[in-house]
Structures are given as structure tokens and as C-alpha cells.
């Protein structure tokens, strides 16, 4: 089976500087792939490249049979990739329900099936659908952000450090939600700061350092790798 998303020898960055050099990765259907690595390794940049947010100077990107290299973000959204930024990922002064409505903005016709799907995934949100998103706790905000991104029924969800600043309890909850989302047939590519926990939960992982691929493998393999442990995971 060919990969849902494959990035081949991608080189690029913001403006002139190349932050990514020859990065290759792929994400299969029904899998959670995590990108870990030290600060400044280009983790978030690698993910933003998928979403058309940086200038690509080499390599190409295939998604679900299409070459999406250089596509504009709004075209990529319509093709089935949704992105949750690390910060400012909700509409604070709009209700939970309105946040979801904005997520489904491009969808023609009735949104009720999409709402049902999100509220089944996040029962907490259904109870508070009229609450302003800005007044929620960090974990709930993350759910709103993911819910917004899932409204368009994407095939691939990109999450930029979804657990940043969350307590361990919420971190576990977000990871569980990621598994639930995957089980509904949505692949997930996420960037994580909490490398150990993330590798333990993801199906596969990539270790990036200085804008280059360093290691690749299943979570367990990477966790067991001595070099990875010493370099990035603090022993």
C-alpha cells in the first residue's frame, strides 16, 4: 500500500534560509506518526511544510495520489489535510459551537453529521457548546482546536505540540483522543516536545536534528535506541 502522505528529500524554509535539508518521511493511513527532536531541530517547520506554509526549494510531497508541493493552504485544506497550530488555535470570543462552525466553513450543505461526529468524540464539548472557547481550560481548548480541524472530515490531521503546557493528566487525555481520532480513520502527524511519552504512544516516530532526518522507527524501537536516548531524551 502506498503511503497517504510522503515527503521526499524536502528542502526549504521561510524566506531565504533553508531550515529543512533533505527531509523524508511518510504517514500511512490509520497511523499516528510523531516528530521529536531537540529545540530548533525543525520539527514544527517540517509539519508546516506539509501545509504549504513555507517555501520549498527541493524535493516533493505527495498526498493521496496528488503532488501537493507548493499548494496554497486553502487548497490543501480542501484536499483533506487540516492543521492545528500550537498557539492561538481557537476563536476565543466565539462559542465552542461557533468554533466548530468556522471549522466547517468550506463545507457545503448540512453540517449536522459533522457536529455529531465531533461531539461523539468530545462529549465534554457538547455539554458546553454555548461556552466561549476562551474561558475553557487548556485541555478543553485543545479539544476545541482539534474539533475545529476535524469538521472538514480530513484524511490527515496535523497537530503542532498539542500537549504543550498541559498537565500530565491532560496530556494522557489528548493522547487518548488522538487514538480515538485515528480509529475513526484519520491519520495523525504530530510534533511533540515530550519525546518519551509521545514515542510510547505513537505508532511510529521520526527524530529530527538540525533540520535533517536522524532516526526513524516505531516508538518502541526509538525508545530502545541508545543513541536516541542519549541525544534527545535526556538519557
Amino acid at each position, binding site marked *: 500500500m502506498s503511503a497517504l502522505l510522503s515527503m521526499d528529500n524536502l528542502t526549504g524554509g521561510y524566506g531565504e534560509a533553508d531550515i529543512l535539508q533533505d527531509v523524508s518521511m511518510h504517514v500511512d493511513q490509520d497511523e499516528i506518526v510523531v516528530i521529536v527532536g531537540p529545540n530548533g531541530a525543525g520539527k514544527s517547520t517540517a509539519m508546516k511544510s506539509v501545509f504549504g506554509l513555507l517555501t520549498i526549494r527541493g524535493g516533493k510531497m505527495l498526498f493521496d495520489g496528488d503532488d501537493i508541493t507548493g499548494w496554497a493552504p486553502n487548497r490543501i485544506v*480542501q484536499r483533506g489535510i487540516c492543521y492545528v497550530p500550537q498557539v492561538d488555535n481557537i*476563536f*476565543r470570543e*466565539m462559542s465552542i459551537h*461557533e468554533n466548530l*462552525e*468556522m471549522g466547517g*466553513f468550506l463545507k457545503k450543505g448540512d453540517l449536522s453529521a459533522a457536529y455529531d461526529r465531533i461531539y461523539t468524540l468530545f462529549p465534554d464539548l457538547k455539554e458546553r457548546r454555548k461556552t466561549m472557547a476562551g474561558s475553557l481550560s487548556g485541555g478543553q481548548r485543545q479539544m476545541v482546536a482539534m474539533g475545529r480541524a476535524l469538521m472538514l472530515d480530513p484524511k490527515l490531521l496535523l497537530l503542532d505540540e498539542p500537549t504543550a503546557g498541559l498537565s500530565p493528566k491532560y496530556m494522557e487525555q489528548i493522547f487518548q483522543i488522538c487514538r480515538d481520532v485515528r480509529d475513526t480513520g484519520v491519520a495523525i502527524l504530530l510534533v511533540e516536545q515530550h519525546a518519551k511519552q509521545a514515542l510510547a504512544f505513537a505508532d511510529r516516530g521520526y527524530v529530527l536534528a538540525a533540520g535533517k532526518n536522524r532516526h526513524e522507527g516505531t516508538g518502541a524501537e526509538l525508545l530502545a535506541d541508545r543513541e536516541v536516548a542519549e541525544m534527545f531524551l535526556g538519557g
Partner: protein
Amino acid sequence: MDFLDLINFYVVPGIVLGSIYAFGAVGITLIFAILRYAHLAHGDLATLGAFIALAVVTSLGFSPLIALPIAIIATAAVAVGIDKVFYDHLRERPKIVTVMASLGIALMVRAVVQVVWGVDTQTYSRGIVRPEDYFGIRIRDRELYTIFAMIVLVGGLQLFLTRSKWGKAMRAMSDNPNLALLSGIDNKKVVMLTWIVAGGLCAASGFFLGYNTELKSMMGWHMLLPMFAAAILGGVGRVEGAVLGGLIVGIAEEMSVLVLPSEYKAAMAFAILLFMLLVRPTGLLKGKVL
């Protein structure tokens, strides 16, 4: 002076003036929130709206209140046009460039008004209107229409912003522009809608100022400061705040005559603006900090 005199001579005119400011302040606050710059041509656009209504009244013989919707539509179209021809090209530049450009537009619009309609004072209809008496409160019909129109138009706008898909898109763009774009909301349409709303409300503001007093080519320019004071007082991005701010500035200007010589009336807006920026820059209803 008894209580009824206070109401009749200061509060009622203050609410009427405040409603006129509110029309402009709502547009200013929306432009601030969605496009993120101070629009200095707002007052002169209001002047244009007032004179378009005058043209309809004098050439077609319509009553002023029928001329109002026509002026609203025409001014909204002019506002959209100005954005397309001028501001749109500056979108990627620092916002201060657009602010300065809007000052130029203000001068241009005023010049057009002066060339077409002259610099003399004009009115929609002549004659003195006696106020009606409602349980001791004296109020003229045109004053009631002004307040009523403000409630209807701003109430309608509020419904549009909270109930309709595109109204929500405008709020989303004001709340978090990056996320709005990531969600696929069409920025261009939102900008156009903002100008339709702001331009239409400008016309209402100028029209009711002319309807209650008289039309002059500088009328809108003189309203610019109180309208900005009202928008900032209410909290930038807050429609209901702009209305509240407009009413407070209007009433404060009228009441200032009680303690200050009337030449200082116009300075009230400036004092309120300064005071708010120093004490509570987010405004009464917690708007954006700029």
C-alpha cells in the same frame, strides 16, 4: 433647574447626538477589529452620505427618510470602491501607511462634496419643528427617528454578526485572522462585507446629523474625534461597546455645558479619549489592545 429640564435640555439631545456618533463608532470599531487600522476618512464618508441623501431629496423630491436607504446603499458602494481602488493595494504594507492614506481619502471625499454641493450650509427641510410632549419629556419626531434607527440598524447588525454564517466569519477574522484563513474563510469577502456595513452606517450617521441640525462640508470631519473616542471607550471590536461609548460621549458633550463654557463642548471627546487610553485602554467592555 428641575429634573425634567435636565432630561429635556441635556439628556435627550445627548442621546440623539450619541446615537449619531454610535453609527460611526460601530463602523470604526469593526474596521479596527477586522482590518486593524484607524480609518480617518470615516467622518468625511459620513458627510458624503448626508449629501447624497440631500441630492435625492432635492432632485427627486423624496422625503428625507426615504432618501436615507438610498444614501446608505450608495455610500456603502463608495466605501467598497475606495477600498478596492486605494486600501487594497496597501494591505501588505505597515498599517500606518493605510492610516495616512485614509487621511488623504478624507481630504479627497471632502473636496468632492465641496465641489458638487458647495461650502454653504444646507438643510433637508425648512421650518421649525416643535417638540411633542410625552409625560413632560419633550422630544421631536426626528429625534425619535434617530434613536429608533440606531436601535434597528445596530440591532440588525448584531443579529447578522451572531446568527449568520458570514457575520460569524467577520467575528472569526477579528478574533484570530490566521486561524480564520486556515479554516478557509475568504478574507476578501469579509473585507468587502466590513466596508458595506461601515459605509452604510457612515451614511446613517451623516444623514441624522444633517436631519437634526444642518449639512456642512465639514460636518463629518468634526465628528471624527468623538466617534473614535466612542469606539475606544466602548472597547475596540465591540459593537455594543461602540453604541455605549457613543451615547456616553454624546451625553457628556451636552452635559459639559453645565460646568464649562460651551466652546469646550468638543473637547469632551478628547478628554474622554485621553482618560480611557491612560486608565483602561481595553475600553469599558474589554476590547482589543492596539
